[in-house]
């Protein structure tokens, strides 16, 4: 009887003891890598999307991002200061979208001193060969050329409105487009207006091209510039002038959907950001560095814009295109 009583007490004590053994509440979060990211700015939808893609990939891969950017895309001096500070941080790799593609060699040297892998994102470097993740800008120029070739009569005059020359992504698109026009001689490019950095610049440039250069179409290297050009042709009642631009920002997509903008070559900032982080992680984990990683660019017109938007709203557009790349 006594033994049974003791056994019962022991069982109760064991049960209470088990209850008393509290769960370990300690949790630690560590990151696989820390990536320094310096973008051009954060004042446009494209860059917000790019940041979103990066953060999404970083969360998936357990990577910490330290992200900075200057006040605008042209603030190369600010970006240099930021890049210098970023290079001094305890980071595993540095991804940046140069405001000035012609001034990156100094950073490459600094990164080499720090043994810091360096990647360009969205905009390639011009003065030195660095790994690049973004659109195939030459291909974009070719796509724009082929679209206008299909829709215009041979020998039509086509104008080009591009952003700053210091950003290689923009200059490459314009150069590529101009190259194909000149090579085939089917389309004539009477003038290239560069250093257009905003809507207003593009508006003025489009007025100039339509009125004085008598162009039948204009190729704009970004969506904002395209919308400025659209505004200009609408104001002077030249709906026959075809406008094609590059971007995936919402207002440009809406313009295609309503027929104001004739064509848009997509460039998903989300895909670029997502792919950039994957590429950097791959490099840090020992995979070979690829010189170029391109996202998928798609020609959007009023014929396929609805399907594109539907896919985008379904959340699959960005991921699908990135997966397709992989």
């Amino acid at each position, binding site marked *: 009887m006594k033994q049974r009583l003791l056994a019962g007490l022991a069982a*109760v004590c064991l*049960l*209470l003891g088990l*209850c*008393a053994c*509290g*769960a*370990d*509440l*300690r*949790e*630690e*979060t*560590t*990151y696989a890598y*820390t990536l320094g990211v310096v973008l051009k700015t954060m004042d446009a939808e494209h860059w917000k999307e790019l940041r979103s893609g990066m953060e999404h990939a970083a969360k998936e891969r357990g990577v*910490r*991002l*330290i*992200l*900075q*950017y*200057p*006040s*605008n895309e042209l*603030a190369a*001096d*600010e970006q*240099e*200061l*930021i890049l210098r*500070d*970023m290079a*001094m*941080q305890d980071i595993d790799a540095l991804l940046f979208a140069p405001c000035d593609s012609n001034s990156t060699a100094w950073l490459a040297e600094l990164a080499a001193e720090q043994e810091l892998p360096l990647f360009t994102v969205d905009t390639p470097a011009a003065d030195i060969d660095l790994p690049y993740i973004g659109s195939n800008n030459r291909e974009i120029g070719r796509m724009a050329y082929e679209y206008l070739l299909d829709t215009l009569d041979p020998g039509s005059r086509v104008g080009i409105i591009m952003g700053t020359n210091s950003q290689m992504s923009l200059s490459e698109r314009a150069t590529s487009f101009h190259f194909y026009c000149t090579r085939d001689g089917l389309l004539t490019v009477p003038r290239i207006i560069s250093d257009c950095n905003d809507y207003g610049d593009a508006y003025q440039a489009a007025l100039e091209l339509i009125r004085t250069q008598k162009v039948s179409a204009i190729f704009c290297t970004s969506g904002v510039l395209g919308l400025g050009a659209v505004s200009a042709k609408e104001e002077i009642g030249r709906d026959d002038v075809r406008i094609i631009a590059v971007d995936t920002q919402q207002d440009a997509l809406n313009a295609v959907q309503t027929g104001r903008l004739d064509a848009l070559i997509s460039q998903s900032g989300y895909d670029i950001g997502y792919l950039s982080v994957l590429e950097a992680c791959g490099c840090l984990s020992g995979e070979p560095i690829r010189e170029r990683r391109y996202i998928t660019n798609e020609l959007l017109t009023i014929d396929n814009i609805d399907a594109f938007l539907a896919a985008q709203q379904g959340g699959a557009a960005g991921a699908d295109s990135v997966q397709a790349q992989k």
Partner: protein
Amino acid sequence: MWRSFRFRIFMALLLVSLSSISLLFAVNYRSALETLEQNYIRASAENIAVQVEQIDETLSELYRTTVRAAADADLLRAVDSYLSIDRTSTQDAIVLAERLESLPGEPLAAEIMYLYLPGKGQMICSDELHLLRTGLEAGHYPWIGSSSGFAPILFRDTMSGSSRWLYGYSKPLYDETGELAAVVCAALEVRTLHYTVLDRADAGYDYYLIGADGLISAASRNDAVGQTAGRAVPEALALPDGAESVSGAEGDWLYSCLRAPFSGVRLVRLTDRSVLRGALDDARWQFFLLLALILSMAAVLAVFLGRWLYLPMDSLMESMARVGGGDLSHCPDDAGQPVEFRQLSRSFNRMIDEINSLIGTLVDERTAKAEAELRALEYQIKPHFMYNTLNSIKYAAILQGSQTIADQIGAFIALLEASISKKGAFIPLSDETELLESYAALQRYRYLDCFTIDYDLTAEARGCYVPRLLLQPLVENAILHGMDMKRSDNHIRIAALVTDGSLWITVQDNGKGMTAEQCSRLLNARAEDDHRQFTGIGVANVRERLQLHYGALAEIKLYSAPGKGTKFFLCLPAAYEAAGDKEGQA
């Protein structure tokens, strides 16, 4: 009451219920506490993640403001212009300060902008009340002389006349020759973070904002600001290498700590476990009170229910007590009782009926016995009358000279007296032989002296007590069944002796003898209703009486064969006293 079965059941149920509820509560309380703490830690970690994000974004904007200022060509030109003035006036400083505050682009994230001009030893500040400061000493502004990177510098603007703590980022401005022209610093008060991000009216926790340099820049306890983290924050909260956040429990504290990715500042939140447990402890006391109340009510209810349940038992116990007290006429009423108690009551009633029946039988038997004794007394009168009458006849025969008739009557009287005497069941063997002689005298007269009996008894055997009329049936059997009445040499021999405490008796005749079957029937069958018999007691009766009185100590054996006579052989314990039927045994 305390030792009653009902009280024990009640206490056992109460104990089991209380133990079960207490154990269940203990387990649940522990589990609830862990869940509560886990959820709190998670919520706390998520909460400070949002706070850290806000702080980091604020500091990030502050950093970018510094960068904007450092890269602003107009500001650099304004600095060059100011420096080129030999004797600057307050108005010149105001112009420069306005330029400092009107950087192009977005509104400044800084609350205050500083511009240190090493060439003039001046500090121009966007704070109008303390616009121009001179006589700077080393240590007044730790950001002078160093570019801060992403980690903000914590400093106190002592020259403004206040002791406020500020976070600032600084950048050098170089002129065209590459010489240091100025150092610009964008700063904001740490208390701004406190009020906009950290402080919560219903917080109930302590927090510490710790810079990358380990100094506490903001805290729920003002006296901790400016101290190194190790003095105010437990060692356990030091983030391990590579860890960005840590949360858990340590001693009396629940903690969450997260490092901001950009600025490197750490936000630590400490919550006193007792505060968190307070609500649960209150609930615990409420539970105990509720438990006590419920148990009290349950106890009262149990008492009433117990009484109700025990009503049939009480009724049965009362009935048993009455019956036990002698009232056998009482029967418990089983109407309306539960099945079990109805069965018990019925069984009890049947038991009482059985007892009553047995008592009735006993009373009847006693009555019958008493009546039999009365009748026996009545019968005793008649033998005396018969003795007296026979004695009168006997003496009349003597007076008339008929001695033979007198002897016959005397023998008959002796036999009659022995057969119905109440004096005892045991008599000495000598008396038994006298009875045999009386019987033999009567039978010799009847059968014309055709047999003789001789006795060979030792003196010791003569004194032994034997059951009365033990030998008479054997002699009677020899006379009635063994004798050939046509012969005159019929002889019966009775011998007795005592050996080793046993009395050995033989009754032997030289008559016709018996077959084995006859012998068996004689020993086992009841006595035949032979009108020739004297007592009606058979040989089997002799055997039964020997067994009854002596058990295995006595035996009777019969040896006989046709034409060779019959011999009874008896062995029984030798007894010399006859105080009673049983006392006569050895």
